[in-house]
């Protein structure tokens, strides 16, 4: 599968493309919806099967379709030398591309509540847990701070635990709408704070959603991202 930074690099080198109309005519592969690494009902009772099915098969699928549409249009705009159109399309690429990246990361940092990945962070994520304890005194202290930050989002967005490249320091950050974590930060784990992520089950009680999400966090994935850094994380897509 083509990852987004490769695609951008390719587009930059090929400008202007000859007679290109869409992704496939340039030899690029369209983005596809990744399968969930578990069944839709696997996160019950903390996230209902109905939420998971809509979230994956409808919402995430719509971001993938929107991204492919925007990339197709971008390829055509590059081929036509239409710079204004290329700039206009950045908004859609950012939104749908961000939606695709964020959800792809999110599914992988979730796991069924009974699993070792979710139940035993100290065992499956020893280095990350140690780093978290250094920074927030305890895992519980970190969870509370993450909840406080995530609940402060005004509108749609995401809460993230990120690792700064270089320093390796952990930080809790939020991104608005579907903005992805970019730059030097490695997204270690993300929590979707859009209403569609919890509303059918939690209604306006989003604090309860943020509390319960810890029952289904995949600490093994988080450890791999924490230890592996940016290159490994980017190839996950």
């Amino acid at each position, binding site marked *: 599968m083509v990852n987004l930074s490769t695609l951008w690099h390719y587009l930059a080198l090929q400008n202007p493309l000859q007679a290109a109309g869409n992704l496939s005519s340039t030899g690029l592969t369209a983005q596809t919806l990744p399968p969930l690494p578990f069944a839709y009902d696997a996160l019950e009772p903390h996230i209902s099967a109905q939420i998971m099915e809509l979230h994956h098969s409808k*919402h995430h699928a719509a971001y993938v379709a929107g991204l492919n549409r925007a990339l197709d249009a971008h390829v055509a705009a590059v081929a036509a030398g239409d710079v204004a159109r290329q700039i206009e399309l950045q908004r859609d690429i950012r939104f749908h591309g961000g939606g695709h990246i964020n959800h792809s990361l999110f599914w992988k940092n979730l796991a069924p509540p009974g699993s070792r990945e979710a139940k035993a962070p100290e065992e499956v994520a020893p280095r990350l847990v140690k780093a978290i304890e250094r920074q927030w005194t305890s895992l519980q202290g970190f969870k509370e701070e993450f909840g406080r930050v995530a609940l402060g989002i005004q*509108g749609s967005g995401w809460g993230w635990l990120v690792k700064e490249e270089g320093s390796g320091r952990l930080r809790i950050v939020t991104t608005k709408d579907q903005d992805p974590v970019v730059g030097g930060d490695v997204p270690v784990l993300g929590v979707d704070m859009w209403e569609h992520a919890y509303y*059918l089950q939690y209604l306006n009680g989003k604090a309860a959603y943020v509390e319960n999400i810890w029952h289904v966090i995949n600490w093994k994935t988080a450890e791999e991202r924490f230890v592996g850094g940016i290159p490994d994380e980017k190839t996950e897509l």
Partner: protein
Amino acid sequence: MSSTLFRAAPALRGALRASAAPRVGAMASTSFVRNKATLPDLPYDYGALEPYISGRIMELHHSKHHQTYVNGLNSALEAIAEAEAKKDFAKAASLAPLLNFHGGGHLNHSLFWENLAPASREGGGEPDGALKKAIETDFGSFSSFRSQLNAALAGIQGSGWAWLAKDKTAGNLQIVTRANQDPVTGSLVPLLGIDAWEHAYYLQYENRKAEYFDAIWNVVNWKTVAKRFESS
């Protein structure tokens, strides 16, 4: 508008204080705030907009979401007044985003409820008179206006609102969108707002938001829109 949205309500003030999360100094700080925002009553029953907007959505939307904005606005005003009293203007300025978010949420929802009416009463149909004429002048036709507003709603990337507004400077009508709870302000007068937050439709329409944007026209109260247009 401010007279209806903000009124002194001693009984409610007490209730708000009691229901607010316990905070050190809350009793002392309330003395800074003279006028509290209060949740306006809906001008119809929760179930009155069915089948276009379910009673369950309306109840949560009004009694929970709007109430949270009212509480948040009062807390922000109180905290700003406290900071002001201490001449801590940096602190007061840092509270501006909270004031914008909760104050905007309160204003937007208050306007929204009045924009709606049961389909069996004033809801639905088309505007008439001067408003109809202005819509035709600025958008070509009523149906073109409708599809332009629906396209604006569909184009919102995240939470937000789409509005029909009158530009007092230019003198014409415009369709504008606002992110999150940003209110329509300045030279623009909000006439008709549609809430595009997921909580406004998700329990009934799930991810099919285009269906919600189509359905809501059946419960638009054009009388309210015309009244706002004429007094703007």
